[in-house]
């Protein structure tokens, strides 16, 4: 039996996540349709990464459910993991290994059959345009190349859901553009669903089929970017939508020190 294709790729119902007295996600419900590019937007500390951690089975919610292709992330942990390709916010490659070895590691961890492994690794590296430098140590890659290598790691298992947590953070505009062109190209080519988080509103506007605006762990708005912009008048952007919902207008007090540190560290490594 295979996972039915008609179910939503991601379905959150009354999701609650707590860290001690802090409620990071509060009664969150949303769905991501199969084949969709869905963006979770919000300032630092809004709960975006917490939601991603639940989707990727790294965190068990205090209440509510999260389903990936109909599978409960709490009960069917390993099955869910096999369906997902994941790019965390921080750079997560091993600089002591080559691009090929970094990708091969994930082929092994996702149990890609031995007879297919070499071909799949080469295919994933070619999909992100790193086939010519696969034999080089990853420590010699530029920031944009590292992100593409991470994408190859996520693609080597041919996931049905690609989860990207702030994937363009710290990248220069050209590398960001290149990364997104590849992600969208691959989405069309491989018929994947993409769930991403970002706080670049322009990026969300151009790339996402639908977005969810998360503030203080609650979903304040959800819909197509144009649908959300329309009530604000002609020429409104997602930036305006964000400002309209974030009534305090500032995210300076949101997000822990660790969040800021992590972001800075990633930006530093990307140079």
């Amino acid at each position, binding site marked *: *039996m*295979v*996972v039915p*294709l008609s179910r939503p790729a991601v379905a959150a119902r009354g999701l609650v996540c707590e860290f001690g007295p802090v409620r990071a996600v509060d009664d969150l419900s949303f769905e991501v349709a199969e084949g969709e590019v869905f963006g979770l937007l919000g300032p630092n500390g809004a709960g975006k990464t917490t939601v991603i951690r639940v989707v*990727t*089975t*790294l965190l068990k919610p205090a209440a509510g459910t999260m389903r990936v*292709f109909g*599978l409960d992330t709490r009960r069917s942990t*390993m*099955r869910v*993991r*096999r*369906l*997902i390709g*994941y*790019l*965390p*916010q*921080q*750079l*997560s*490659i*091993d600089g*002591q*290994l*080559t691009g090929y*070895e970094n990708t091969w*590691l*994930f082929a*092994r*961890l*996702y*149990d890609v059959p031995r007879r297919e492994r070499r071909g799949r690794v080469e*295919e994933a590296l070619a999909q992100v345009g790193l086939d010519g430098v696969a034999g080089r*140590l990853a420590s010699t890659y530029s920031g944009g190349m590292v992100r593409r290598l991470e994408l190859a*790691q996520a693609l080597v298992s*041919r*996931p*049905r859901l690609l989860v990207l947590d702030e994937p363009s953070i710290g990248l220069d505009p050209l590398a960001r553009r290149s990364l997104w062109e590849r992600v969208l190209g691959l989405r069309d*080519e*491989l*018929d*994947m669903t993409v769930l991403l988080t970002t706080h670049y509103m322009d990026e969300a506007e151009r790339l996402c089929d639908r977005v969810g605006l998360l503030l203080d762990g609650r979903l304040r708005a959800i819909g197509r970017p144009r649908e959300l912009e329309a009530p604000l008048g002609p020429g409104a952007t997602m930036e305006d939508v964000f400002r309209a919902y974030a009534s305090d207008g500032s995210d300076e007090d949101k997000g822990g020190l660790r969040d800021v540190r992590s972001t800075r*560290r990633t930006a530093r*490594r990307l140079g």
Partner: protein
Amino acid sequence: MSAAPAAPPVDSAEPPAAIAAVRLLGSRTATLCLLELAKLRHDRTELYTRAVQPALWLLVFGETFTRIHAITTPGGLPYLDYLAPGIMAQSALFIAIFYGIQLIWERDFGILTKLLATPTPRVALVAGKAFAAGVRALSQVVVVLVLASVLGVRFLWSPPRLLGAGAAVLLGSAFFASLSMTIAGVVRSRDRLMGIGQAITMPLFFASNALYPTAVMPPWVQAITHVNPLSYEVNALRWLLLGLPGNPALDFAALLGAATAGIAAASLLLGRLAS
């Protein structure tokens, strides 16, 4: 255009859970060990720099104590011969005991998070890393073995004995690496782990039979050596490489038990480290 990704089978016929679990454990461990070898192949600097300390122990401490005959060895064995397996175990210990630092580094750079999101149970991840530390330690032990041979230590060069010695080093290193990963799960910071690692390394080394027979130790130190896995590793190496009398079944059982307990403890604390 590539074919659309096939939905992975969910309820397909699968082997019994226990067999699948053992297979998974073996597969993940082999994967991480192979990558450790790849890292060693790409950068051999550590192999050379880490050879300095054991070389000094053998050349300075070993040669000196062999000449002054201060330590009575079983069967009148030259002290350098008696010392060599102890230095091998020490080299492996020094590599493995700081392995938790690498895990914290991987946590800080998101590598651990990504590994935890793969279909890999935590115990398989820890076992893989523990034995990868063993592979790195083994490469160091080979260097010490060659060095000691050059200095005139007469080892028993039979393949089964060498394989057994390799297994003892792998198990001992797996324990000390998982001990380090367990401490990493408790302290969660590189600086604290470095301090604790430095604080426990030398006591573990001196409160073992690596340098001298336990018979010459005060009773309270002897008691510690009996619960110190390093002693069992050294015993196994002496039995295998020098042919000294020993109880290899007990040694390997102790090493296997320690490695299993260490991996279980580190697995339990891995979630705490990653959060």
